[in-house]
């Protein structure tokens, strides 16, 4: 990154500004919007890379949205891209919050605000569900439907019935994948690791 690619930085800014301003329900709810921008609208990465980034973001502590924005901005537009993406996703909403809080405190109970907040929840649910389906379809392609379904069921049981923290399961899968010896011809690499 020696020269500043202004149009690219503008695209990074717009994509994360849109994501931040349209995302209701906190950072995790904005994941489908980030996917829409970086995979579909701008084509900065494919589904596979996006899912890896999402996995690492979920394995590490801290807010999801800023981790994703910061990393994607960095990968697409270097250090400047990192700052651009972070600023675009964080600053506008913080400024709105500080500026409007005294006004909003009087309208918090207003039915119109309540109505808007409850109408957005199912839409966020649908977007998250579509992304779920998209990932499952890809998994079927990668792993075959038997393994994909088995892993999905195990994950569901772990998260919902056993209350296992997602970071633990994802961390365990990452360690398993990296440490397990690869079949036959990759044996040497497995021993070296």
């Amino acid at each position, binding site marked *: 990154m020696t020269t500043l690619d202004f149009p690219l930085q503008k695209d990074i800014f717009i994509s994360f500004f849109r994501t931040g301003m349209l995302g209701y329900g906190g950072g995790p709810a904005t994941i489908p919007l980030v996917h829409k921008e970086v995979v579909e609208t701008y084509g900065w990465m494919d589904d596979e890379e996006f899912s890896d980034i999402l996995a690492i973001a979920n394995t590490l502590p801290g807010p999801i949205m800023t981790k994703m924005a910061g990393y994607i901005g*960095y990968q697409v537009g270097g250090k400047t891209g990192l700052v651009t993406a972070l600023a675009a996703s964080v600053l506008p909403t913080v400024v709105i*919050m500080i500026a409007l809080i005294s006004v909003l405190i009087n309208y918090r109970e207003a039915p119109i605000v309540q109505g808007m907040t409850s*109408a957005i929840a199912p839409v966020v649910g649908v977007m998250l569900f579509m992304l779920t389906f998209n*990932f499952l379809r890809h998994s079927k392609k990668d792993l075959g439907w038997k393994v994909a379904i088995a892993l999905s069921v195990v994950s569901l049981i772990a998260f919902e019935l056993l209350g296992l923290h997602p970071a633990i399961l994802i961390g365990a899968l990452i360690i398993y994948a990296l440490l397990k010896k690869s079949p036959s011809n990759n044996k040497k690499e497995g021993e070296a690791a």
Partner: protein
Amino acid sequence: MIEYWHLFIAFLIPGIVGYGGGPASIPLIEYEVVQRFSWMTTQEFAEVLALGNALPGPIATKMAGYIGYEVGGVLGATVAISATVIPSLVAMIVLLKLLVKYKNSPKVKRMTALIRPAIAILLGVLAYQFFQTSYEAAGLVQTIILIVLSFLALERWNIHPAYVIVGALTYGAIFLA
């Protein structure tokens, strides 16, 4: 000066020990802000949180920005947001750089494939929680109407999420108010 240090600590800890994104770290932020440093009462915190949830964007940084600003002005907001964002972001970049370096290794490929179903289920669970919230707030009929309409708009008619979200907000302001 000590105030900025306190802000830094108060938002650094939830950012480091809070798993599951910003919303999951809210109780940790509350502990620091209300119990430990007494910048707000529980009641005030709850009000600010409710407002933060009514506004768009990530919640952890909105809370950090607002509380930081109340305690220490613009510099306070900067300190609180930085403490929230930077540590986990640095870890993220270091880990993913490693991953990209070994992108073509069969192990990393296998890892990508193996974690995807878990991530999918995680998103599915999140989707379910949003449906549940909506069911509690707007009732079954409105929830189903909104689910069907937004699904058709996004999937069948290929309308950009921006318009669907604005549409839903308008619908809520008119029919759910």
